[in-house]
């Protein structure tokens, strides 16, 4: 997470022969056990002795991870997202790699039972077309999986790109202040005042001819603004902290201060908002495809599927429900993960 990991550092200098499996934070609680008897030992060193608890040490990152892993909602969401990811990418395969599902999302199959889903809960059975078939007989399970693949790819690509752009712009504006800040933040304002959907629609229209990757790029280019503002705000407060003053007093060059001292401390803000960006990107892509500006046939996405079959809601409701459920599941899972991360980074919110 931080760049310090790659530095050489002695591996556990004097802690070799220490008992392993004790909680390193025991010393925080050790107030509990001994009473009067060892009071005198304590008196000699009022400051807690470091030697007494030499086990593995917890970095801030490790503490965050520990809290995250204990967040029940977030863990369920991680499980849910992993299942969706596995299902989407293993079932119909990716590119040349084949999946375990025998059917293809573009081939036509004979219509069975008016295309109704064959999946049954009891007795559990998958059947020929678990999610049913569309009006011309394409396998809907394969289509939804393909749609989920595209939507997930776009969401993560947008999330990552917007995070990188937003972090760079926010950090530069926040740390350098002055003209740089004014220029960058007014540019950000410029992006904010144009409705994202309209801008994305115009650019997406042009880009979607070039395929999904171009669409992801365009969406990434318009959705970094919120993150840039948040990162700037965080950096503004971090740059006044004394450890930054200490770094400047040593003569640390500016890029190093930003990379080593400021950004790792702004990681909480960045990570939490990146997850929220991802779930927002899913929704934006769905909306764009629904409006016909996003992913173009013959490729498909969850939004496009809904758009294609919106009129079928009464006659063939599964054509509407399945992609809807997947959009909902992905967005919900990502949001919950973001929530868990926020609680993990800021445990004070949970106290009381």
């Amino acid at each position, binding site marked *: 997470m931080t760049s310090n990991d790659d530095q050489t550092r002695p591996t556990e200098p004097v802690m070799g022969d220490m008992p392993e499996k004790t909680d390193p934070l025991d010393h925080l609680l050790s107030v509990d056990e001994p009473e009067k008897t060892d*009071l005198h030992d304590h008196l000699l060193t009022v400051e807690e002795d470091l030697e007494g608890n030499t086990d593995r*040490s917890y970095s801030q990152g490790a503490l965050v991870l520990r809290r995250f892993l204990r967040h029940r909602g977030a863990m369920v969401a991680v499980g849910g997202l992993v299942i969706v990811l596995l299902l989407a990418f293993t079932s119909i395969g990716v590119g040349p790699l084949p999946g375990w599902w025998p059917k293809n999302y573009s081939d036509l199959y004979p219509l069975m039972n008016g295309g109704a889903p064959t999946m049954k809960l009891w007795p559990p059975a998958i059947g020929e077309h678990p999610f049913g078939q569309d009006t011309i007989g394409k396998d809907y399970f394969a289509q939804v999986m393909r749609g989920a693949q595209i939507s997930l790819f776009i969401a993560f690509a947008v999330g990552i790109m917007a995070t990188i752009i937003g972090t760079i712009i926010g950090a530069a504006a926040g740390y350098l202040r002055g003209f740089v800040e004014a220029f960058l933040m007014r540019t950000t304002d410029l992006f904010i005042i144009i409705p994202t959907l309209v801008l994305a629609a115009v650019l997406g229209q042009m880009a979607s001819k070039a395929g999904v990757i171009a669409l992801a790029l365009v969406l990434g280019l318009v959705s970094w603004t919120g993150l840039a503002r948040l990162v700037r705000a965080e950096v503004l407060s971090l740059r006044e902290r004394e450890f930054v003053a200490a770094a400047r007093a040593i003569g640390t060059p500016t890029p190093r201060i930003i990379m080593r001292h400021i950004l790792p*401390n702004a990681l909480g803000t960045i990570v939490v908002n990146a997850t929220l960006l991802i779930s927002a990107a899913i929704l934006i892509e769905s909306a764009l495809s629904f409006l016909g500006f996003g992913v173009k046939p013959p490729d498909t996405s969850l939004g496009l599927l809904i758009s294609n079959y919106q009129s079928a809601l009464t006659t063939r409701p599964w054509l509407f429900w399945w992609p809807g459920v997947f959009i909902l599941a992905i967005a919900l899972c990502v949001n919950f993960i973001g929530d868990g991360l926020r609680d993990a980074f800021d*445990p004070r919110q949970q106290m009381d």
Partner: protein
Amino acid sequence: MTPHTNTNTPAYNAETDPVLKFSQLDVNFKTEFGRVHAVKGLDLQVMPGEVVALVGESGSGKSVTATTALGLLPKTARIGGQTLVADKIINELSERGLRSVRGNRVAMVFQEPMTALNPVIRIGEQLTEAMEVHGIAHGREAWDRAVGLLEAVGIPAARRRAREFPHELSGGMRQRVVIAMALACDPEVIIADEPTTALDVTVQADILDLLRSLKDQLNTGILLITHNMGVVADMADRVAVMFKGEIVERGTVEEVLLNPQHPYTRRLLDAVPHLGAGHGQFGTSPLPVAADAGMALEVKDLVVEYKREGKKPFRAVDGVSIDVRRGEIVGLVGESGSGKSTIGRALLGLIPSTSGEVRVLGTDALSVRGKGGNELRKRIGVIFQDPAASLNPRLPVGDVIAEPMSVHKVARGKEREKKVLDLLEAVQLPRSAYNRYPHELSGGQRQRVSIARALSLQPDLLIADEPTSALDVSVQASVLEMLIGLQREFGFACLFISHDLAVIDSLAHRVVVMQYGKVVERGNRDQVLMNPQEEYTKRLLAAAPVPNPIEQKRRRDERHALLASLGDEIVTLDTRELSM
């Protein structure tokens, strides 16, 4: 239990029974990693008109104890035993019952007057709030009483002040407002949690005078929580020393401070720096400066201004000249707002200087740029006040200490690692601290880390900005001792910025006193501290409390005499204003 009392609580007698009583108080906190036992079966009582000081270092559980009296502990706390305010058992009260006690029977004076007052509400309204909540006074009447309270705590032009907002008052005035708020409902007991820690010494002395008159004139019981032994000597009738959740010693202030029995109390008292004890009070004293020592730092007519939107710039440092010779420790003393920290930051190039000349080790520090500037920075070390804030929380200790070396590309790999381990040894930290993170260390250990970082390039000049004021006294003593030892070993020159005259007395060769951005007095340590010439220095020295109740009483009388001779008033509670 006599037959004619129909309740099983004995009748409460307001004259002779304690106003605040903790019996077998036991507090547990649930934390992320299990339970922490903060208070272990504590017994303590405060009688009306009595000041009981609860003394201890951070983490001893003293604030937790006091907070139980208001029922304000977070839900993660499990409380055993009883806390009684007059005849009410706090642990058994409902939320509604608690509200009727808070502010009304027991009131609190907080440490930080900046944050204890709501910045968007007028002072008068903050005062009337408690009165209206408890139905003591309403509307006009409450407002008049608020003005009366402000006058009683010695705020001039109270009628106008009541309409002002907290930011328009100075720190000392704000603390008086907080005390007035505590008095608003005429409580039986006031809990003062470090009431003067955030204040300058001269202001602290005024606030202590005010609190003292409070117990004499209103017969209020005061539970004073503090770590400052000087404040205890000045204020308390009885003292209880707390250590790791237990009271280890208790008695009258004379017994405890003059004849401590428990080893912890003795340690605590030994660690308090004594004004007038001079060098060597912590075991080592700095070497005398060589007669032919060159100049490490020369500051001439330094001016630092802060630009203000639409107003003329604020001159924080106004034509200050200081010089430090090689191997010399110069103490820079002043109260908040004197510009002493601004000088430190300007010398480090963290804020631009408006005019003047700064020569560090013979190089003009203000005009030097680029490579020369880096060379210069290598030779200056810096220690900041708050070790919790000045260490990057994301870096382990070893990286923190190695940071200056890696910035200046000094040593690498194994060699750098060895240097870091040597430095850890020099600041008396175990080698295992190498992989620890700052949040796993105590305050004193963190400050040792930041000293190790400051010394990692073997600087010729060290700028220490209040390096011990965020530490407990026993930790402060060991850090000072270590710092003096390191100075003997490395021989660096040091500009030691502090507000604490006793700390300066223990290590400085020379002293410079600042007020409002200007140098007021300068000279050798004993000359300035023992025989001050300027009025401001005299005030400063008179206001610093010493941890000896008898001597402190004498000093207090001397200070009152000094104030009288200077034509100032001594702050007391003016009860005529409270007759309503």
